[in-house]
């Protein structure tokens, strides 16, 4: 089909992108525009629906059908669209506040119903658009606009919450790892059912470096573990560490100490 001939450029709109210079959203936008042509979809059959937040400006920059809706409701709007137009490829763009604070109920119910849509959850562990309050994913003790003495709430682990809501495809990737991000985007699109893609996204204005440990050369290898089907859970500077189950408790073992890779 001709759509195969599309290029990333075909997904760029005439609106100038209005994120802060250096925002992680730019990289995600670029990767999504890059992956789109590879999915073999006709542009007119793609719909991006977002809530409110910096991340939720996303649809304006994708030359497909799109809706920039209201805070927290993109998942519910997408449900109504997908329920009636199953042939469309529906993408939800949402932030950690949009999806898990005000939008928490619609998120878990969408996962439960398992409509065949893709959720891109831009997690910067902060409220960006409203200028830096802590979010449900901010770590305990987070000093933010609304918590000068540090937050007291325990954060959600988005993946655990979505598993508990019986999500059928749950993945985590990063704005700073284009290759892995593109890979996960394709996998999510391929999954029949709701795909939840949590994307670590750096907000360099209000929460700069929140994910540095995972994204920066120096520490990435030591702190990040890439899970691959049927491959052992190995990470570390020289892939010398692994994760093994000690009964039910996952423990970190040193492969050097004669623990085999099985």
């Amino acid at each position, binding site marked *: 089909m001709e759509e195969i001939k599309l290029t990333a450029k075909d997904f760029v709109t005439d609106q100038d992108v209005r994120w802060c210079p250096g925002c992680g959203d730019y990289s995600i936008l670029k990767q999504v525009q890059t992956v789109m042509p590879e999915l073999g979809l006709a542009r007119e059959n793609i719909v991006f629906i977002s809530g409110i937040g910096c991340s939720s400006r996303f649809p304006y920059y994708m030359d497909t059908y799109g809706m920039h809706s209201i805070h927290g409701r993109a998942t519910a709007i997408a449900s*109504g669209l997908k329920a009636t137009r199953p042939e469309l490829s529906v993408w939800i763009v949402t932030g950690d506040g949009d999806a898990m604070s005000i939008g928490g*109920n619609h998120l878990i119910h969408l996962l439960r119903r398992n409509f065949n849509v893709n959720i891109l959850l831009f997690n910067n562990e902060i409220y960006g658009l409203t200028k830096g309050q802590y979010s449900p994913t901010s770590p305990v003790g987070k000093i933010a606009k609304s918590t000068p003495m540090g937050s007291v709430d325990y954060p959600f682990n988005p993946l655990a919450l979505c598993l508990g809501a019986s999500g059928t495809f749950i993945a985590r990737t990063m704005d700073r790892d284009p290759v892995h991000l593109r890979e996960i985007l394709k996998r999510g699109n391929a999954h029949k059912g709701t795909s939840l893609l949590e994307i670590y996204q750096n907000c360099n204005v209000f929460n700069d470096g929140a994910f540095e440990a995972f994204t920066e050369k120096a520490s990435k290898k030591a702190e990040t573990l890439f899970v691959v089907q049927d491959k052992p859970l190995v990470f570390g500077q020289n892939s010398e560490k692994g994760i093994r189950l000690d009964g039910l408790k996952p423990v970190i073992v040193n492969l050097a100490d004669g623990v085999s890779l099985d």
Partner: protein
Amino acid sequence: MASSTEIKNDVVILFAGDSGDGIQLTGTQFTNTAALYGNDISTFPNFPAEIRAPQGTLAGVSGFQLHFGSVEIHTPGDASDVLVVMNAAALKANVAQLKEGGIIIANTEGFDAKNLGLAKYPEGVNPLENDSLAKFKVYPIDITKLTRTCLAGSGLGTKEMDRSRNMFVLGLIYWMYNRTLDSTVDYIREQFKKRPELVEANIKTLKAGYHYGDTIEAPMSRYEVKAAVHERGSYRNIMGNQATAIGLIAAAQKAGLDLFYGTYPITPASDILHELSKHKNFGVKTFQAEDEIAAITSAIGASFGGNLGVTASSGPGIALKGEAIGLALMLELPLVIVNVQRGGPSTGLPTKTEQADLLQAMYGRNGEAPVAVVAASSPSDCFYMVYEACRIAVETMTPVFFLSDGYIANGAEPWKFPTAAELPAITTRFAKNELLAGEKYKPYKRDQNLVREWAIPGTKGLEHRVGGIEKENETGNISYDPDNHELMVKIRQAKIDGIANSIPLQKLDSGKEKGKLLVLGWGSTYGSIKTAVHDVVQSGHEVSHAQLRYLNPFPKNLGEILGNFEKVLIPEMNNGQLIKIIRDKYFVDAIGFNKIKGMPFTTGELTRKIIETLQ
């Protein structure tokens, strides 16, 4: 021994008993039989708020009032001619509304010490045995015993036998009004087809009740209520919520759209969902959402995709939809919001009726957010007005409120099924790609009525983005330009005002064009006002009546009509809401008449007020 037959124009019967006594079923059966016979009818079921309040208590009394006649009937009637009570509480709760000389049929078994106690009659007092009911014709019948004897040897347990008691009553009333048992017999056969023994038992009891009329010692008189002269056509008996469901389907079909109904259950709106969920074959999708916000936003998503998006609730649920309604009107997508009003505020009186959500429909959102508002005036009018709501939503690309209420939602009346041809056309304008090379699509380009096109996903070349932030006219791009904002606010208002060009002019329901007094009602008060005005006119006064069904915008000629009367009286089942809008918009010093009791106006209340206003 057979007894004389007296002819009556109309009769009001009230069946009352425990929620467990099958009162609603009994009433519905008689209603259907009367409808088939050709009587005009109006019914008023009155449920307790609890699913099954404790048996025998006043709180547990369930009632079904039905008014049928050979003349035009527009209300369930202020007082009843016949009161059927299955227990003492049912009598106590309703005897005040029985006409002097009226008939009481009482199930004596429901008047034992226990039941008298539960009904809070003083120790040792039994109304059936003292003279407290002297001004009525009382027929104490041990219906329980009679039913059991009639079913003796049927092999049923007493519990199951007793479930047929209502059939005995129904049979007796059929006898009293010379009605055939056929349709109820058919119903019983259908209902219990899997349990032949119950079919037999119920039919047997029904007949027993019927024949009891002849055999009863205390002679009962029989009455005849001739058929009403309806215009020809196939009639069915319909409740407001059913009519609403059918109206939505009819509108979607006429518009060539699929119907998406996103809702969250709530009394008294849920039955619309129950009805629609049976009609998937008509391209109907019902979606029971996790809450009211998801209900309306999923409907917005469906509308964005080219469906007729509809959401429904009652007051508390509607309050949760305000923000999303604002989104829909910013996007300029068709959306119908059904509000089956109930007593408020907050949880209020869930099973009672009220008209107190009009101002919420008009103003219950942030910013300048005008939407169209229509209301139904009777059970069957729910069909026509929800149809209109759909027409306006699709043709104007805007959210439209359809207001019903508990009274007409559960009330019933005979209704002549319209043919598709009789219904107004609904023109859906999906955008086609007619762009010239290099031309950019303008999603907010407008026609002469300021209405934009409906460009739905899947249409090649019309890819575009919509959103809730203020947008530049035509292009739809985000715009913070001050003048553009004012322009857009004015356009959105003008678009709603313009709907006045596509709706009928306001007609007077009765009375002269000019005069001393106009009674102006809206929505479900239609029947009561019509009847009251008719009575007042009969008694030689001059009054006119107009009933509003289009509330935003109003019909173009409303101001002129109001100007033709010295006084305008506005009865509402609220603390005065329409009157606020009328006074502001037309600067008419209208007089309000308000009832806030969770109950429709009685004809008596209205006639008194009208005459008082005329003085």
